[in-house]
């Protein structure tokens, strides 16, 4: 069973763990993810491989505690085993020398963009990174990203760090400054990805988004992850998670993400009780 080698709290509700999983690390490319089943009774949840070390045989995941299964995952400690890890999954991020690439991460999406930024830089791109969160405490991975980016801009909703406002405001400014942008990559909450796509669409700047759909098997067998892209149904787990943002039906995506809201609350309450008593 994959063992947790180290664990770190990045903010109030975001944790980072490094896991021993040599076969996963060996095959991983930036933009791919894993499925984690922390304990036998938990859900199968998808999490991005935020970093990987082929030599050490480790992968890093950074996750936000939002519900029952992430809460259970967070209850595991250094030295504990994770019941199941499956990966790498999904299609890797397309890498080539595009020129100037703006990479945008919002919320926990900030951690998800790290391997992509790193790889873009290695491929010879000029990377401008924009990260945004609600407040200063939630702006994770800032120094790591700074070393990999030509420029790093930060925004917070409350102005506690960087610019007060949204990542899309920064994006607009860069565009308005007249800089030629060859590609934009956005990872974060649905509304954020949608707004960024609205900015780039009229200018026809190719914009890729990484979709966090609900997933179950994540091997192409169930179809829960289906999204409409360019009028066609796609399975995000095997055909994604990256898609052309200008083609994605974000309305449908948002609605499908909320399909289990009440049940998730119920499960979370159940786990909260268990963790309190145990």
């Amino acid at each position: 069973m994959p063992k947790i080698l180290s664990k770190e709290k990045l903010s109030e509700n975001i944790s980072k763990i490094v896991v021993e999983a040599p076969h996963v690390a060996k095959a991983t490319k930036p933009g791919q993810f894993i499925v984690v089943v922390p304990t036998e009774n938990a859900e199968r949840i998808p999490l991005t491989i935020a970093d990987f070390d082929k030599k050490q045989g480790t992968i890093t995941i950074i996750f936000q505690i939002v519900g029952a299964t992430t809460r259970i995952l967070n209850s595991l400690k250094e030295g504990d085993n994770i019941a199941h890890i499956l990966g790498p999954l999904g299609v890797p991020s397309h890498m080539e020398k595009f020129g100037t690439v703006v990479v945008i991460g919002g919320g926990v999406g900030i951690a998800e963009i790290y391997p992509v930024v790193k790889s873009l830089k290695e491929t010879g791109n000029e990377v401008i990174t924009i990260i945004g969160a609600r407040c200063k405490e939630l702006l994770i991975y800032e120094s790591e990203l700074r070393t990999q980016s030509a420029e790093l801009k930060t925004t917070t909703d409350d102005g506690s760090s960087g610019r007060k406002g949204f990542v899309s405001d920064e994006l607009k400014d860069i565009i308005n400054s007249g800089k030629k942008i060859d590609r934009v990559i956005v990872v974060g909450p649905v509304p954020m990805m949608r707004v960024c796509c609205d900015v780039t669409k009229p200018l026809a700047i190719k914009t890729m988004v990484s979709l966090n759909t609900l997933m179950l098997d994540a091997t192409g067998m169930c179809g829960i992850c289906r999204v409409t892209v360019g009028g066609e149904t796609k399975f995000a787990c095997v055909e994604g998670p990256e898609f052309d943002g200008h083609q994605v039906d974000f309305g449908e995506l948002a609605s499908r993400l909320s399909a289990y809201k009440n049940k998730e609350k119920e499960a979370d309450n159940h786990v909260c009780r268990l963790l309190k008593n145990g």
Partner: protein
Amino acid sequence: MGERSVVERITDFQEVPLGYTLEEAISEAKRCIQCKNPQCVKGCPVEIDIPGFLKYLALGNFESAIKKIKETNSLPAVCGRVCPQEEQCELKCVLGVKGEPVGIGNLERFLADWERAENRKQKAESGEKKKDKIAVVGSGPAGLTCAGDLARLGYQITVFESLHVTGGVLTYGIPEFRLPKKIVEMEIDYIKSLGVEIKTDMLIGNVYTIEELLKEYKAVFIGSGAGLPKFMDIPGENFDGVYSANEYLFRVNMMKAWKFPEYLTPIKIGKKVAVVGGGNVAMDAARVSLRLGAEEVCIIYRRTKNEMPARKEEVHRAEEEGIIFKNLTLPIAYHADEKGWVKDAKCIQMELGEPDSSGRRRPVPIEGSNFKIPVETVIVAIGNSPNPLIPHRTPNLKTERWGGVIITNEGATSISGVFAGGDIVRGAATVISAMGDGKRAAKAIHKMLSA
């Protein structure tokens, strides 16, 4: 053979048929007239020596009887339950010409259950240990059979399974009340006792490619199944509340959503459920819905009951349990409420026209016959295609246009040393044909490595 009453069984997930009693089993086995040229064997894809095991059974020698079966079939408790016997061994039984054929499947089940109850696990006998390592992809019936047969010949076998639980459709697809998971686990334990190593959480194609496997293993068998759910591509199919049967059954069987929140994977089911399709998968999804507390469950099928591909027995049980059959009906669109949750299925009435390529009369829509069925849950069970992942990641692996991996009569694919069988080759078929394919490939691999 007894069955649990409808009122009792629809409230839980326990098995419906009770199985033969000892007396029933012996007297049923005695009905076999021990044909010199037994037709029944020809109907069995793994050629079990049926009169052979029935003879022992009739004499009350259960141990020899089960041993006889296991010579060719390593999963008797499964086959006895889910084989379409009425189209295979029992269809061919000579007694069936005038009266009732011998209940071969149920007798097979009886023996496997007897062995389990007695805890008389047949000691795994393996041949002389060989050095050759062989990789098997997928732990469904095709992969397990191939692995078991090769292990018995002494090879070192590693099975790679992408999911976190083994068994393929036996585990994630066929529900508990038709195939208890305890039984699947026991059959898999038997395969493991032969020395087979099973590695779960290993998606071949992503973790290792087939080419990478060939560097470490002398041969590879691909039994990755037909797990790709088909949709109809009609408007509204992506609304919340519209499931593929795979998702629905996976949540219930694999993730144990029926024990929510003890198990954390949720399932949401409305009062009114519609299942689209007419095969075993549709019957299973419908009967699961009933057990999860749906008030009204209907099956929407575009032909009539006569053309349904599901086993007669299962259609009958579904009807008994109160499932409503809306035959000659085709959904053409779904509508949702303001929150995006499905609220009705727009359907069109069909009639049967000329026979099509399958020999069944083709359903044709009746113009202007549109009507709405109010629903809160829709389960699309119109079939599955071969899993495309391995073919996509293995450029030299030749496939049919519809996705099936192309093999020779011996089960060899277009890549030397790579064999395939089961649903990845046939499209959605049966447990026993997948097992037959696994056996055939095991023979061919042995032949190749002995040469």
